[in-house]
């Protein structure tokens, strides 16, 4: 299969869906010439016109609100918020409006909306440009939450998100855009709510999201001669394919969640809660979360590195959990 970059895969998904359905339009900052914060929308204005690729003023609350209102009235907006850190200026339109409108209206409204954004650290952009905020959205009933880790997943999941009739928060990672992987050139969909076993194994279940999937795979490879690690990427947090995770933990008896978001109160804790509840008898040791430091992301490289789970730490945690019990 041809190799394609994550950002190109996103671009293809947008392009295919725009070609397929006239009601799909893009809205956000600097989408036209720059292609948005990541380049994912490059070339789309040329192809589909600025009528459908709407570059906005710096007014996130207004353009997210516009998108929600457009979705209520039959369009299928795909919004870009340049960095997920900036959701803080438009949280209301996402949380109190988009997520709740269908329910509050007794099912009368449908909000087919995708909000794309990028999270994560590792580029020395400091505390206001490096957060991983998926836990906020996963705690907001009415939102689906998607976090693709590979080019193939990015394309298939974004297409499904666009076709979904609910508001979907689609979280990319800034260090993934340039990564390449195999992905079909032709059209395909990956359903929301289906985890992917990225590497099968027997001794421990490692659930990782977004960029952490790659670090976890590297860690799994590094210990492969002594420990057989199963790496699962849930791909979507809401809906969560808990069955896939449970099945794995029933087999391995051990669960380690690796997330970049701050450990405290992150979505990893939610996975631990559910697995503990549902697989208690099978657990050989306490499930754990290896997450980001409970700190704002520091600027300086060595400090930033210390805040993000690194391969060595994952290896260390795997080894301790497997020898532990």
């Amino acid at each position, binding site marked *: 299969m041809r190799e394609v970059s994550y950002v190109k895969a996103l671009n293809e998904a947008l392009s295919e869906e725009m070609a397929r359905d006239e009601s799909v339009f893009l809205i956000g900052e600097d989408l036209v010439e720059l292609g948005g914060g990541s380049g994912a929308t490059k070339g789309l204005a040329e192809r589909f016109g600025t009528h459908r690729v709407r570059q906005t003023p710096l007014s996130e609350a207004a353009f997210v609100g516009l998108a929600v209102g*457009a979705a209520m009235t039959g369009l299928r907006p795909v919004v870009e918020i340049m960095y997920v850190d900036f959701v803080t200026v438009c949280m209301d339109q996402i949380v109190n409006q988009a997520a709740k409108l269908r329910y509050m209206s007794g099912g009368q409204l449908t*909000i087919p909306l995708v909000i794309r954004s990028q999270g994560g650290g590792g580029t020395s952009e400091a505390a206001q440009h490096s957060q991983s905020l998926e836990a906020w959205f996963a705690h907001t009933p009415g939102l689906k939450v998607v976090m693709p880790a590979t080019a193939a997943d990015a394309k298939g999941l974004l297409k499904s998100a666009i076709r*979904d009739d609910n508001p979907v928060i689609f979280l990319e990672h800034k260090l993934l855009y340039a990564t390449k992987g195999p992905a079909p050139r032709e059209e395909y969909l990956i359903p929301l709510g289906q985890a992917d076993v990225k590497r099968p194994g027997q001794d421990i279940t490692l659930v990782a999201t977004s960029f952490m999937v790659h670090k976890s795979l590297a860690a799994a490879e590094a210990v492969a001669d002594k420990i057989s690690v199963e790496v699962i990427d849930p791909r979507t947090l809401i809906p969560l394919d808990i069955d896939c995770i449970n099945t794995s933990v029933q087999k391995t008896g051990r669960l380690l969640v690796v997330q970049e978001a701050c450990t405290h109160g992150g979505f990893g804790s939610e996975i631990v809660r559910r697995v503990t509840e549902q697989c208690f008898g099978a657990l050989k040791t306490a499930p754990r979360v290896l997450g980001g430091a409970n700190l704002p992301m520091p600027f300086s490289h060595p400090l930033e590195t210390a805040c993000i789970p690194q391969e060595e730490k994952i290896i260390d945690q795997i080894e301790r959990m497997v020898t532990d019990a």
Partner: protein
Amino acid sequence: MRIPEDTLREMLRLMYTIRAFECRARQLFEERRLRGSFMGALHSYEGEEAVAVGACIGLRPDDYILSTHRGHGHCIAKGVDVKFMMAELLGKETGISKGRGGSMHMFDPALGLLGGNGIVGGGIPLALGPAFSAQYRHTDQVTVCFFGDGAACQGNFHESLNLASLWKLPVIYICENNQYAVTTPVNESIAVANVADRAAGYGCPGEVVDGSDVLAVYRAVTEAVQRARGGAGPMLLECKTYRYQAHCMVIPDRRDPQELARWQKEHDPIRHFERYLLDQQIMDEAQQSKLNEQVHKTVEAAVTFAEASPLPHPSTVAEHLWAED
């Protein structure tokens, strides 16, 4: 502008209906409170009837409106049957939002009613959406967005007016300046005399309107609608008005009683319009009081309908969250 007599009579009927509905809703609230049960927050539109009616009567059913926390008047003026509203207030399954929404969240997309809002100013960005949608789909639908003097202080106002004006969206922003936001008088919250004057800062026309004169509102909105339908973009209208009741049912009213008395005496929208209809010999007193009686009967029938309707069953609580359910 010549207004057909039927339209004038319909205006009066709608104003009567709003007042009767609000009055009856307050009674129900009080009765229930005495029995120790809640009806949530109830914000009366009494005194402001001319705004909703003047603004909505000239709209088409496929034109959109965005309402507020003080929204019953908007719903009635846009054509919603009061029995579904009353049922909603009582939390019944037959309510317009199936009991999920309540007083602040009434929706009827078929009539263009895209909902009230519990977040002050929350509807202002949403209104950009249906307006954008109409422009995108090349229809000539317009959107009317109601908001209060309090809401005019929210950042949403600024972002949305700018965007609407920049993109010439067919949206009419109507500020219902009833002089107070809860207990805060407008001169303690807005640094200038008129919200409408801010339109200049967005390059769109603004106008102060006598909000107790239904015909003045009608004329101003009709002009704004014509502009918007013709592609000339948004307009900001500020209707000066006054609410007769406390902010909501659970908050004591400490406004100067003489101020209230003066507004009721000099600016009551219904009395004012009754007199006009008499003067113009369109309806005599007998016809007016007959109409009012009919309206009261309709409202009473709505109460009967609502009281007789079933509450939603707890087992259905999760219905209407996701589009696929």
